[in-house]
């Protein structure tokens, strides 16, 4: 499968604090690339490097190269990049707007005004996020009225409406109950055909369930990367073995 995102010698610092050390690997098109590791391993920092969201932090500096379709992400217009590489956060953060306006927020910011086009985008992305049947009759109601699981799928739909190529999931189910978690996981599996997915998770079992390939991060370093089943069944590094079998973490 062709490479979608390539990372070369990436180091990330916040002030003097080194959070990511010498990362080099590739993420392929249409895979679910999962990143596991204990807290403070730099997993979320890595995700936010991919869409340059951590540039909002004044302390952030990086060296090395990240490319999207062989193009340096620093050379891509940052607003465009963030639409191409969408992110779903750990907590659902609906804006205090209607369901409809939440989903159309990104497209509207990129200049899409036509009502019909927006309505079409809303229906398509809600269907893709498996939320359409639950909310189709109340699109004008406040998004904050939805349940937690629905809000998270709304956030997925909101990212989809920007017509991204890559979707980053930053522990998307950490605040959800098991049933909502299962629905979000199903959604991710379905989306895999059309999008490249990078999933950061604290939940090792989740990585095993949905991942195609898995990377193990520890203290800012990538210990191991490989096919998910290899990482889980015959890891090459003893630390990976200890982590996936629950000896620490």
């Amino acid at each position, binding site marked *: 499968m062709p490479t979608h995102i390539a990372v070369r010698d990436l180091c990330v610092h916040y002030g003097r604090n080194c959070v990511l050390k010498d990362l080099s690997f590739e993420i392929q098109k249409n895979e679910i690339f999962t990143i596991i590791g204990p807290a403070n391993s730099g997993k979320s920092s890595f995700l936010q490097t991919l*869409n340059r*969201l951590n540039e*909002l932090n*004044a302390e952030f500096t990086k060296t090395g190269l990240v490319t999207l379709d062989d193009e340096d992400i620093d050379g891509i217009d940052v*607003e*465009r*990049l*963030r*639409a191409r590489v*969408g*992110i779903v*956060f750990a*907590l659902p*953060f609906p*804006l*205090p707007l209607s369901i409809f306006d939440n989903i159309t*927020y*990104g497209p*509207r*910011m*990129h200049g899409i005004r036509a009502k019909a086009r927006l309505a079409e985008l809303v229906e398509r992305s809600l269907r893709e996020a498996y939320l359409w049947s639950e909310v189709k009759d109340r699109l004008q109601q*406040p998004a*904050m009225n939805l349940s937690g699981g629905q809000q998270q799928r709304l956030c997925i739909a*909101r*990212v989809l409406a*920007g017509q991204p190529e890559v979707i980053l999931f930053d522990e998307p189910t950490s605040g959800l109950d098991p049933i909502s978690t299962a629905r979000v996981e199903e959604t991710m599996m379905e989306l895999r055909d059309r999008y490249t997915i990078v999933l950061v998770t604290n939940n090792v079992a989740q990585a095993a369930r949905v991942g195609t390939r898995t990377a193990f991060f520890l203290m800012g370093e990538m210990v191991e990367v490989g096919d998910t089943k290899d990482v889980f069944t015959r890891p090459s590094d003893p630390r990976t073995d200890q982590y996936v079998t629950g000896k620490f973490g």
Partner: protein
Amino acid sequence: MNVRTEQRIAFGFLFFCTLLAVVPVLVILGIIAYKGMSALSLDFIFGMPESGMNAGGIFPALLGTIYLVTGAICFAVPLGVLSAIYLVEYSKDNVVSRLIKLAIVNLAGVPSVVYGLFGLGIFVVFLGFGVSILSGSLTLGIMILPVIITASREALESVPKSFRMVSFSLGASRWQTIRHAVLPHALPGILTGTILGLGRAAGETAPILFTVAAFYLPRLPESVFDQTMALPYHLYVISTQVPGIREDFRFGTALVLLMLVLILNLAAIVLRYRFRKKKRW
């Protein structure tokens, strides 16, 4: 002494202190309303002053104050809100921005008579606006600027960080984020702060003393370069500068001014209450 009695005494004392804060407000309102109510009539509010302010009404002063407050808003609100946006959303935390913030805090502590002299120096004399509504409005505007900036900053800072994160993550630019994800949710707070600032501007005497207020001018102003009477100054004049003014006129004028300020404050409270009920985060 047992714990329960001790607690009862403490509560009683605290309640008494709180009550003391309310008493002056009620007494002032009561006395002014009692002595001034008899003067209130449509002729008093909408009439011209006559025979050395001892007859007729206070309309030029009331209208003058409304003009001044309106002028102060037109100047201070855009400037104040835009500076607050810059300070909260754009400026980095460095020496310069901290100095600016310190200056704003200090601006709020400058005595109002100093603003009056400043207005006289800058607007009346140096810029040549003369003693006029324009000079007075600008002076009042500068005086309430720190109030508006501080209220707007607090309103902007109270908008959750996550709104900004989400907006940026969906590919909005910084300005789009401010315009669509921050400002709409800060607006109620900004509005409330602004109205409270206006209440202050409406009641101040010192800043308008040298810049706009006319002692006795029984006609309505015709342009922004006209002088005008204003309620707080008019009240000062008829209470202390001209002997023998009818008592009910003096208290009536005070009552109108007080009501103007109270209505503005009430509007701010109602507005805040209504927005708080709608708020969902």
